[in-house]
């Protein structure tokens, strides 16, 4: 059975919503003095997420904890800042995963079934030396798992049998938490939420949070990379560059990947065209048109982004992944991370060889 303490830990459960409905409270009621604790706790939750601090569950007063969750969400959605929504979703998912990992199998099963309409079975099977504690429908798994970029989360590397994906308890907890994050983020683009405005009485709290978010956001904004820095180029792009330099003809997807990558790190059309110069079937007029199109200078005026890692992998262009690869899902993200590392190490490109590219998640 799920107790009030459980609802405090997992306020996204339908039972938590029912608990709040049972109290017959609206958001504006929470502005009243008798709920000052709830407001304080809600503000604290959002604050911690902005500051990147760990949010822990306050179980001493479960009711306040439960009520503070929808109010914190209200602040976040009313801010209309995508960055803040993502940040809050991430910290809630993290907190939730921490809690879930402490739960026994039976409780985890109960939560799994009571949260997102999933059908989960704690149905351990033993395969040789390992025990897989949970199974859930493959289509439900696929709603969430593509968010993870480690190859061990690929469906290809999961035990899939009879329409069920089998998972270890810790992976199942991770999947549940990630689904929570997705739901919070996706909800933000729903009509009802986009139109949502906070009651006047609560506005001062939101303004304080907005100010803090504005300050913090500045420090997180990443500068647009300026031109190509050698030590920061991901292995996939390096491989294509090598092929081009040796005059090899490369696939359409490879051309698209390298062109979008170079344009996005701030290289000009001429620099890109120079790379293609060695290739036998190079047709400058045509190539120029295509590169300019990708750069958003002609045609649809859309500036294209490089394909993400999953796509490159599907097209067989992901080669020699290194340790940095395991931290990213996108070649541009790799580039920015390595630039940051370089800057931190005083301009020296850090060796990131080895590791085989298998991150934990």
């Amino acid at each position, binding site marked *: 059975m799920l107790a009030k303490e459980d609802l405090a830990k997992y306020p996204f459960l339908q039972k938590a919503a029912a608990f709040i409905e049972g109290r017959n409270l609206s958001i504006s009621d929470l502005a009243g003095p008798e709920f000052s604790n709830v407001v304080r706790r809600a503000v604290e939750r959002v604050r911690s997420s902005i500051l990147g601090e760990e949010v822990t569950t306050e179980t001493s007063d479960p009711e306040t904890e439960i009520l503070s969750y929808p109010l914190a969400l209200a602040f976040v959605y009313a801010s209309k800042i995508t960055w803040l929504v993502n940040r809050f979703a991430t910290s809630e998912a993290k907190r939730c995963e921490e809690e879930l990992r402490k739960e026994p199998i039976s409780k985890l099963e109960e939560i799994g079934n009571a949260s997102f309409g999933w059908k989960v079975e704690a149905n351990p099977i033993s395969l040789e030396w390992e025990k897989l504690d949970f199974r859930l*429908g*493959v289509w439900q798994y*696929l709603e969430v798992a593509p968010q993870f970029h480690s190859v061990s989360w690929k*469906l*290809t590397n999961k035990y*899939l049998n009879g*329409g069920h994906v089998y998972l270890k308890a810790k992976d199942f907890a991770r999947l549940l938490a990630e689904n929570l994050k997705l739901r919070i983020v996706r909800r933000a683009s729903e009509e009802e939420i986009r139109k949502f405005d906070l009651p006047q009485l609560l506005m001062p709290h939101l303004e304080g949070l907005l100010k803090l978010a504005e300050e913090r956001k500045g420090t997180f904004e990443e500068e647009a990379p300026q031109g190509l820095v050698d030590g920061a180029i991901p292995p996939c792009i390096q491989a294509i560059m090598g092929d081009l330099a040796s005059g090899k003809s490369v696939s359409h997807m490879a051309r698209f990947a390298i062109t979008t990558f170079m344009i996005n790190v701030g290289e000009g059309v001429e620099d890109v065209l120079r790379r293609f110069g060695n290739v*036998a079937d190079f047709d400058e007029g045509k190539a120029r048109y295509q590169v300019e199109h990708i750069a958003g200078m002609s045609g649809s005026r859309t500036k294209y982004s490089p394909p993400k890692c999953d796509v490159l992998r*599907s097209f067989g262009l992901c080669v020699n992944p290194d340790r940095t690869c395991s931290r990213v899902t996108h070649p541009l993200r790799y580039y920015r991370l390595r630039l940051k590392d370089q800057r931190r190490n005083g301009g020296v490109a850090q060796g990131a060889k080895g590791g085989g590219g298998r991150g934990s998640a």
Partner: protein
Amino acid sequence: MIRHLQFASARALKEYLEVKAPANAYYSSAYYDTPSAPDMVGKGWQGADLVFDIDADHIPTACKADHDTWRCLDCGAAGRGFPPAACPKCGMKKLETETWVCEECLKVAKEEAFKLIDDFMIPDFGVSQKEIEICFSGHRGYHLHILDERLRRLGSDGRREVADYVRGVGLDPRDHGFREIAREGAFLGPDMRDGGWRGRIARAIYAYISKCTEDQLRQVVKSAAVADTICRNRAKFLENIASDPPFWGGIKGYSLESVVRIALAAAAENACAIDERVTLDVKRLIRHPNTLHGKTALRAVRLDYSELESFDPLRSAVAFRGGSIKVYVKGMPRVRIGDHEAGPASSVEMEVPKAFGLYLICKGAAEPRS
């Protein structure tokens, strides 16, 4: 191409097709609020079927040397068979190809369809036979639709995972039961009776080791000593991994790393050759069942699973039965349509059954003569 059409009834669609008689007719795999809206936003995407495309063109077969040719548009070099990625003479990629399908190609495509259904969709994905709609495309292969409402809203990322799964993309045997144990060189591995890729890998290794030559194995494990060890102990190796529970580490002289390499090479033969672009598309145009294919004059035929085995596309998909026409054949390999077989032939006039003649005309290999 006329797009964004919406019909109130099957009857209205039929009438439209009768009046317009298009060379090709397609429908979208997507479900929309307003299919006739001219742009994607206005259409309101509700979801899409999961579709697999199996096309003989994507599968290298030996028979392609008999009926396919390619020619480099730059240097004029030409050859037979599966077209190379680039011209072997000048390295250019502008190749003109002439491809035909024969019974062998269609047989391979059918085997691939069975593999997709029997090895992946039913046992791994838990899809039932009646949820699988099969359609002969009218040309080189088969379309498979998975009709399960639960997966209609699956995004492109999720569909990519499904496509990668059946193609074995990103497969890491270490996630499928292989594990080093404390004792140096010793390791554990999966059981052939396991489900999913786990059991498939074990079975693939068994099949591979049963039939490989030492030369082939050396290429795979990149070590003459390891290949020698495994080949000398072949029977023991096979007996060990087939035992219950399996026993992977009983022979000295090779490491987990070698077995992982064998697993990857062997698994490639068990992967399914689909055109992944079709599967990950959430709004793909698909040839409408029961319409004619503009390149063959054959019918796109919808099939039940039970009909697939005995289905002979070059007979059952023939739409024009009876009658004959006179054609001037510019060039063709050996072709069979229905019971009529002819070729190779070039620069010759002949009278042939109507379906045969229309096939050649649609392929651009012949012209009608009166």
